[in-house]
Structures are given as structure tokens and as C-alpha cells.
């Protein structure tokens, strides 16, 4: 089994502590699996947010992150939060316990803290925690879902409801660091090939098109906001290649991206681990 060292922010809302811990986990670890690891020493409920190996790497669709835990449904979502966690040097969030008063989890380039939220509305939270307009992402659990900068929902209403019940008013991440790529030349080559394959607007250059905004690094504006955790192996690795390639080509591109990103050869058999794991879980 391929393993990955993951830097996790472990936030105990009951004790009001937040620290960064490094754990070794399988490449395909799910947020529910990560929650189980911490369940012996952290108070319930536990909600986790995981990123994949390819999250935030710049490949098209590489804004994928996943939510899970005992009390929330497991879903993949696309947005800025997962990628900016990785730019901040963090691979996963482990949120546990309950706070009587609303707290905000603030992560700034590898350092994490829990702060009292002075106001609970989005403008108030942005005023308090938006450190940089360009490099900070604020995710706020609202009635309709977890909403991040730009108004995209990155977690459904059940995840948002659970986070609010835990007393978490916001997650603010400032990330100015880098996601390392082992063979950046080869990686860039594959990434550009994929971007060129993405569907383009057919209107001529002189015509205004006023395209709507899309989630971070997404090329499919009409794509689904959430995917079930059972969905696909590319999502488990942090990238959504929907609308760009279809199987079996999708797998070939995925293996190329993984090989260049990690610097190790990836073969079909490594992806089968994910399929086997899903079947076992079922």
C-alpha cells in the first residue's frame, strides 16, 4: 500500500486547542478513516476534511477535497479551501468536540489556532480573519452549506449544520507556500495537455461572453458541486478530470500526473488499491 505523510491540523473545540500533527496514512485514506484514527483520544463528534495527493497542484480540476466523519455524510467537493490548505503546508483537518461559544479555526502557513469569533456574519468574519485578499480563504458554515470566498458551496447543509453545532463559525486559511512537484517539467507538460483538451467557448474573440465564475481550478462550470465518496479514483486523489477526459484515457493521464508529481512510477495496480478498498468497505 502506498503511504503518504499528512500534516493534519487537529482542533479540539472542547479544549480550545489546535495543533499540527504529522501522520502516515494510505494514499487513499478517507476523512472517515482519518476520524477513526483520532476517535480514541478526541471528543465526539469528529469531522475531517482531507485533500488528495494532487489537490492544489494546478492540474485542471485539482481543487478537490473530501469531508467525512461519523456524524456527517462523506462527500467530495471542489473549491479553494483544500488547495489553500496545501499551500499552507496542511493536508487535512481533524475537527472535534463542541464549544459553547463560536470559534474560528485560523491557519496561517502551517500554524493553527482557535480564536473567538467576534461576529458570526460573513462580512464580520472576513473583517476579523481575512489576512490577505489574495491568499486567504474563509469557509463559513451557513444554512445552505459551507460557503467559501466567491460564494461557492464546498460542503452540503449537513456538514455545515454539524460544524455549526460544534461551535465552529469559520475556517480561515492563509497559504503562501508551495505544493512540491517532483518532476515539474513533465507535470507541466501533462497539465497543459489537459487544459488544451478542456472545452472552450465557441464565441469569437471580439464577442463578450460574461462567463460565470467557477470553483478553483475547475474547467467545468456546469459540473456537479458534490460527488459521493464512492465516486471515482481521480477524485480520491484530489483531481476531477470530468469533462476533459473519459476512461480509459482518464486513467492514463492520472498515472502520468501522479508519476510526475510524486517522482515515483505509478501503475494501474496502484489505482486498483482504491477499488479494492471501496469493495472491502462495502
Amino acid at each position, binding site marked *: 500500500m502506498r503511504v503518504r505523510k499528512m500534516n493534519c491540523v487537529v482542533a479540539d473545540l472542547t479544549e480550545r486547542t489546535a495543533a499540527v500533527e504529522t501522520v502516515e496514512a494510505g494514499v487513499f485514506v478517507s476523512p472517515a478513516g482519518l476520524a477513526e484514527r483520532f476517535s480514541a483520544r478526541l471528543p465526539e463528534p469528529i469531522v475531517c476534511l482531507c485533500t488528495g495527493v494532487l489537490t*492544489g*497542484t*494546478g492540474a*485542471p480540476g*485539482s481543487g478537490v477535497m473530501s469531508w467525512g466523519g461519523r456524524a456527517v455524510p462523506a462527500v467530495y467537493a471542489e473549491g*479553494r479551501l483544500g488547495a489553500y490548505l496545501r*499551500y499552507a503546508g496542511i493536508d487535512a483537518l481533524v475537527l472535534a468536540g463542541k464549544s459553547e461559544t463560536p470559534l474560528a479555526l485560523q491557519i496561517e502557513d502551517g500554524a493553527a489556532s482557535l480564536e473567538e469569533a467576534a461576529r458570526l456574519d460573513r462580512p464580520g468574519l472576513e473583517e476579523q480573519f481575512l489576512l490577505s*485578499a*489574495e*491568499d486567504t480563504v474563509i469557509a463559513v458554515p451557513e444554512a445552505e452549506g459551507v460557503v467559501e470566498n*466567491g460564494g461557492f458551496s464546498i460542503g452540503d447543509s449537513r456538514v455545515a449544520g454539524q460544524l455549526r453545532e460544534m461551535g465552529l463559525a469559520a475556517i480561515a486559511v492563509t*497559504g*503562501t*507556500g*508551495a*505544493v*512540491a*512537484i517532483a518532476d*515539474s*517539467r513533465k*507535470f*507541466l507538460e501533462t*497539465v*497543459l495537455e489537459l*487544459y*488544451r483538451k*478542456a*472545452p*472552450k*467557448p465557441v464565441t469569437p*474573440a*471580439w*464577442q*463578450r*461572453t*460574461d*462567463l*460565470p*465564475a*467557477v*470553483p*478553483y*481550478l*475547475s*474547467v467545468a*462550470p456546469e459540473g456537479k458541486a458534490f460527488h459521493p465518496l464512492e465516486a471515482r479514483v481521480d477524485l480520491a486523489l484530489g483531481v476531477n478530470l470530468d469533462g476533459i477526459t473519459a476512461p480509459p484515457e482518464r486513467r492514463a493521464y492520472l498515472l502520468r500526473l501522479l508519476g510526475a508529481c510524486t517522482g515515483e512510477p505509478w501503475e494501474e495496480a496502484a489505482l486498483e488499491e482504491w477499488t479494492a478498498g471501496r469493495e472491502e468497505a462495502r
Partner: protein
Amino acid sequence: MKVLTFDQSRCTRCGACQAVCSLAKKGAAQPSEARIHIRGAEGPEALRAAVCQHCASPVCVTACMRGIIHKNPVTGVVSRKTEDCFRCAACLVLCPVGAVAFDHGADAFVTCDLCGGDPACVQACPTGALRYEDPEEASGALRYQYARKTLGDAEARE
């Protein structure tokens, strides 16, 4: 000389240009140190690309205290010898479009060098909001776009 142009009506704010620029120039995904940034201008709906315009008379060339920034008289590209930068930030302060970025790896101020004539950001842009084209072609498209918006289709064609 071709120029890098930006059509905000096609920009979906996906961030691909910044991510790919950092991959090309830094060998890692680090959008904060990309040489192109899509920024809001006068409100959330107006966007602009903060990227080197390779100005006809670049103020950074005049301002640079070490004289390491040059404009190539043939290609028109403004480039710099980053290894000699002593980080006075004169270029950063004076650049009219905010196109100067700091590269912590190189420990120097940097700007877009158009990737030697085939910009990675243009190749990656999924909607064609970023283009690398002749200035005449670019300004013609912009004029037509403006005319259509203000006068309507029929009058704009005249």
C-alpha cells in the same frame, strides 16, 4: 511584437493562469508567487490581469538602481538579471500595473518574461480570456466589443 491580452468577460476566476505560471517558473504549485495575478478592479465584477505589459518606455528600467532591467529593442520584451537584484523594490513601487512579484526562491523581484514567446498561462487558460496576439488585433477586438456594448450590433458593424 505580440502582447499578452486579457478579456475579463471570459475570465471564470479559475486560477489556472497563476497555478500554471508558478509551475513553469518555480517548478512548484505556488500561486502567491506567480508572475500573473487576476485582481479585482473597482468592484468585484471588474477584473484585470496584473502582469508585465512590456511597456514602450518602461518605468522599471529607469527606476532600477542596479541597471539590471532591460528592454530588448528587437523583441520589445522587458527582462532582468535577477541574480543581481538587491531588492530595493523601486520597480515594485513604480510599476503602474502592479506586475512585479517577489520570488523567495530566487530572492529577487521578478516579472513575466512571456515564457520565451509561448506563455504557459495562455496555453492553460480554459476559456481564452488570456491571449497572446498582435496589438492591432487585440485593440480591434476591444474596440468592437465596446462599440457593441454601447451602440448595439448594427451600429457597431458600421
